[in-house]
């Protein structure tokens, strides 16, 4: 596609990158069909091709972001379904990442919007703050219906309260721990323990560590490693994202040798695998690229070594493909292969490529679209009559919970079939 940047504009490295991405796009329109927001809203402006065009025009004219561009860019889930569909190989992810930074630098959001974003950025990446906030939310949840009106702010508040779990799990603090392999020694990995996950889904980390240990893998969680930075990254808060990336790269490059850096929250995995690009112009570029190269989703890592030991129960598992896994990391078969190897009957919903609406903080910031995508996903999952819904990402599990079918991380099911405990969510199934 034609672009109109001046030579001076193209001297800026980030504009040169954007230009190269835009030039790959041939404007064929295939991406529109598999974009969750285009399917839901039916407007070119809420499709990848429309957003690419908005971004192109904004950057070419060196213009501050306007309300209209921000509206449509904010509505993008970053599910990257468009990248799976695109025949030309357009790197939409890095284009929209750059556009978000541009929005963050040039657009003044309304006050309530700024406050909410600030609060989320100050809480979600920190397990202890997150836990405290969830405890408050849990207390407030029964009164959510008292919130008056249908303004966006009120809808966002309600969406936040609805995400709070009914029961708070025990606190988890894994930073600085080492978990020895049991019996044999087949390898040593670092595990990204996640931030929100430690607060709302500690059983996922526990199952991951137990399973890896039983397979002879030592699991290390360096003290210095923390939130991957995805949350602030997707808000266009570039500096904070780079800070998180650098901290983690250092934590995993401190001399300890790991066979892999394991991620069991695929949303984070996509960002870890992008550290190499994010820090490409930094002095740490080589270290960051090495960390990205070593990063593996738990399903990728388990594929070669997983061995079930238990007799499988007659349970039908609906596998929900997290976008970060299927589109961001192009991992589609491994989770299903593993679940089948464990002895489960695996089914998939219609339109598996469509996002469930979780997408980081999207279900808080865009409650209407997120609710509509959640409903669609749950309907298509339930049409397959599963006993349980399994996914590889905490965000999806939270989004799909509370509709009558238990949700578990697939690693919990795999651990169960390899001698671990039955996941608590399955009591009664």
């Amino acid at each position, binding site marked *: 596609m034609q672009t109109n940047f001046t030579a001076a504009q193209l001297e800026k490295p980030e504009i040169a990158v954007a230009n190269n991405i835009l030039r790959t796009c041939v404007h064929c329109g295939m991406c529109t069909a598999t974009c969750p927001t285009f399917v839901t809203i*039916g407007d*070119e402006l809420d499709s990848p091709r429309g957003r690419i065009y908005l971004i192109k025009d904004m950057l070419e004219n060196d213009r501050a972001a306007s309300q209209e561009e921000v509206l449509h860019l904010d509505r993008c889930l970053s599910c990257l379904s468009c990248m799976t569909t695109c025949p030309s190989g357009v790197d939409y992810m890095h284009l929209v990442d750059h556009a978000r930074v541009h929005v963050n630098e040039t657009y003044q959001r309304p006050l309530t919007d700024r406050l909410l974003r600030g609060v989320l950025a100050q809480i979600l990446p920190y397990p202890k703050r997150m836990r405290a906030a969830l405890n408050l939310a849990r207390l407030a949840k029964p009164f959510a219906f008292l919130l008056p009106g249908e303004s966006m702010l009120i809808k966002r508040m309600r969406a936040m309260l609805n995400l709070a779990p009914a029961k708070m799990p025990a606190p988890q603090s894994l930073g600085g721990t080492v978990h020895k392999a049991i019996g044999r020694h087949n390898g040593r990995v670092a595990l990204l323990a996640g931030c929100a996950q430690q607060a709302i889904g500690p059983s996922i980390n526990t199952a991951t560590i137990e399973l890896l240990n039983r397979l002879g893998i030592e699991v290390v969680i360096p003290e210095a490693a923390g939130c991957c930075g995805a949350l602030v990254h997707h808000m266009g808060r570039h500096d904070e994202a780079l800070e998180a990336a650098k901290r983690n790269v250092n934590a995993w490059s401190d001399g300890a040798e790991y066979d892999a850096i394991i991620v069991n929250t695929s949303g984070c995995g996509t960002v870890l695998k992008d550290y190499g690009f994010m820090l490409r112009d930094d002095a740490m570029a080589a270290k960051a690229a090495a960390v990205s190269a070593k990063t593996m989703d738990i399903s990728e890592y388990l594929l070669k070594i997983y061995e079930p030991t238990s007799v499988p129960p007659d349970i039908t598992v609906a596998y929900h493909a997290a976008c970060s896994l299927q589109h961001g990391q192009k991992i589609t078969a491994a989770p299903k292969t593993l679940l089948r190897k464990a002895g489960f009957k695996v089914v998939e919903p219609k339109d598996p490529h469509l996002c469930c609406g979780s997408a980081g903080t999207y279900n808080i910031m865009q409650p209407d679209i997120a609710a509509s995508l959640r409903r669609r996903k749950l309907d298509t999952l339930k049409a397959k009559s599963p006993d349980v819904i399994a996914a590889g990402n905490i965000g999806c599990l939270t989004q799909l919970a509370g509709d009558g079918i238990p949700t578990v991380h697939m690693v919990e099911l795999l651990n169960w079939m390899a001698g671990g405990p039955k996941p608590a969510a399955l009591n009664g199934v």
Partner: protein
Amino acid sequence: MQQAKPKPGILDKRAEIIAGLQAILPERAVIGDNISLKPYETDGLSAYKQMPLAVVLPETEAHVVAIMKFCNLHGVRVIPRGAGTSLSGGALPMADAVVIGMMRMNKILDINYADRYAVVQPGVTNIAITQAVQDEQFFYAPDPSSQLACMIGGNVSMNSGGAHCLKYGVTANNLLGLRIVTIEGEILEIGGKQMDAAGYDWLGLITGSEGQLGILTEVTVRILRSPEGARAMLAGFASNEVAGQCVDAIISSGIIPVALEFMDKPAIHACEDFAHAGYPLDAEALLIIEVEGSETEQSEMLARIRDICAAYHPVSMRVSQTAEESAAIWKGRKGAFGAVGRISPDYLCMDGTIPTSELPNVLKRIQAMSDEYGLKVANIFHAGDGNLHPLIMFDANDAESFHKAEAFGADILKLCVEVGGCLTGEHGVGIEKRDLMSVQFTPSELDQQRRIKSAFDPAWLLNPSKVFPLSGLAAAE
């Protein structure tokens, strides 16, 4: 490319027109600010751009009626748009026109398996029809390469084809009925739920009329029983000409494969990068030949085709063994145009039809033109139908390269007409081939066609800068 002159007075009344449309449509159904209009300035033929006056996104037929009455009353031009995947610029706006985007009218209204039809709204994607009926072992046959995204309203307007049209015919052969809203806002029901319609072949007239006679609001398509099975075969050849001769030999033998597709070397490589289908990278040209039916039927037909191919000394022959292999083969073919985006920043996708016996000759002459113009060309097309799609690769950031590509494209289409073929196969005339219509038709043939447009749309408000040379619009006004 020359744009039509805006109608006097319309641009000055822009704010009024937008406010008038907002008054008759729901919230966020009218787009009127220049930032938001920008992505609507072009479609699948992105070399041509024009900002519209406004965009409207109706959700119901009643909205369409209201929009048409409003535009007719105020003399405002209307450009229909589906998914915006047109490769001939069918949805290119005009400065004084309202673009009517049909993508919100995307419901499947009725499926009848006993009588084998489906009634759908125009914004339903082509593939969504097959997806809706495939669990019952039915499918909708025409399958444009953009079928994932393109919408049935656009398919009807352009009389789209696809790889499998060799056996099943194009859109026109798979339609039963339409509802259209005229520029006056009247609803016409054309055809019905079965084959025959009394009197003139209205359905045939509306199909391929490129949004110039009315706006579609409902389409009744024929659905067919899925075949028992299908298998694709890949045959690689040492040159384009030899592959072209082989195509002619297959068709001449009386065999009708369900699809017979051609790719030349640049296309093979680009598609392999995208789809990893195992295309033969050492071949100069590749035929994808698909047969369907029972196992025995498939085997018999494949054996005959293998014998024919063997006479042309193929460099490789492979029959797909699994459904996954076939899916990958088709993924590459269907994504071919986009995949060329991997080897060139821009392309013009031509669409002409020639007698299959002319394939070797025409391919040779296209190659000679390519050398002459100094622009690379990739050939990916429906060989069985003689429907060519040369993709001319150019650099849109270089004006000279673009002008050369346009001239090269026009030469190819003129060549198609010269050898007894046609300017368009399945992409429509649009804006791209408008001026070449006088190469294909005599002045009186064109006049008669224009009179038909005038009968439906006396003031030429509906997509008026397409299909005919601009002199037609000027004369009508």
